[in-house]
C-alpha cells in the first residue's frame, strides 16, 4: 500500500503549508510567528521521520540487546538542538513584536503600514 509508506511525508507537507499560510495570509504579527513555529515543527517532524527505521528502537544502547536495530541518531541530534534554538528565536521575534506594539499601538500589519504612510 502506497499511502502507508508515504503518509508521513504528506502530513509533513500539509503542516508545512498550514504554517506557510499562516505566515503569508495572516496580518497579525503574533499569528505570523505562530505560523513560523508551525512551519518549523513540520520540518522537525520531517527530519525525525526520515531517521526512523522499521523495527528500530531509540538509539540508546544498554537497556536492550545489542542485536537491536537502531533508528538513525543523526537527525535526532540536529533537531534536539534546533528545538531549543527555535524557542529562543521565537522569543526574539516576540520581543520585536512587543516593541512594534509599543511604537505603533497595534500588531496588525495593515494598521502599521497606514501609520507609516501617514508620517
Amino acid at each position, binding site marked *: 500500500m502506497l499511502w502507508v509508506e508515504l503518509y508521513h511525508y504528506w502530513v509533513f507537507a500539509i503542516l508545512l503549508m498550514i504554517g506557510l499560510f499562516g505566515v503569508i495570509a495572516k496580518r497579525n504579527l503574533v499569528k505570523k510567528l505562530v505560523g513560523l513555529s508551525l512551519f518549523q515543527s513540520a520540518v522537525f517532524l520531517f527530519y525525525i521521520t526520515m531517521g526512523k527505521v522499521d523495527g528500530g528502537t531509540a538509539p540508546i544502547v544498554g*537497556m*536492550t540487546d545489542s542485536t537491536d536495530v537502531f533508528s538513525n541518531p543523526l537527525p535526532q541530534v540536529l533537531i534536539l538542538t534546533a528545538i531549543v534554538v527555535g524557542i529562543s528565536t521565537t522569543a526574539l521575534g516576540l520581543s520585536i513584536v512587543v516593541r512594534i506594539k509599543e511604537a505603533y499601538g497595534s500588531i496588525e500589519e495593515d494598521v502599521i503600514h497606514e501609520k507609516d504612510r501617514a508620517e
Partner: protein
Amino acid sequence: MIIQVVAFALIVTMMLGLVRAIKGPKVYDRVLAVNMMGTKTVLLLAVLAFIDDRPDYLDLALAYALINFIGVFAVLEFFRTRESQLVIAETDDTGEASDEAPGNEGGK
C-alpha cells in the same frame, strides 16, 4: 494485548479533549482541555514505554507529569494581570460570541 487497548482508549480520549479545546466556548474550557490532554499524554508515554519495552521512556512521562501544570498557572497569572481588559469577547469558530470576564480580582 490489553495494553494496546489502553493506548487506543487514551488516543480516543485525547481526540475528545481536542474537540473540546477547539470548540471552547470559554477560555477556561480550553485550559481544562489542555490540562486533560497533558495528563493523557503522560499516561500514553508511560504505556508506550511498556509497549516498546523501553523503560527509559518513562523519564519523558515524568517530565510531563512535573511541568505540565505550569501552563495553567501561566494562564491564571495572564488573566490576573490583564486588568485593563475587563471583558474579552471571544468569538469561537461557529461565529457565536460569548462574553468572558477574566479573573482580574488580583490581590491589590
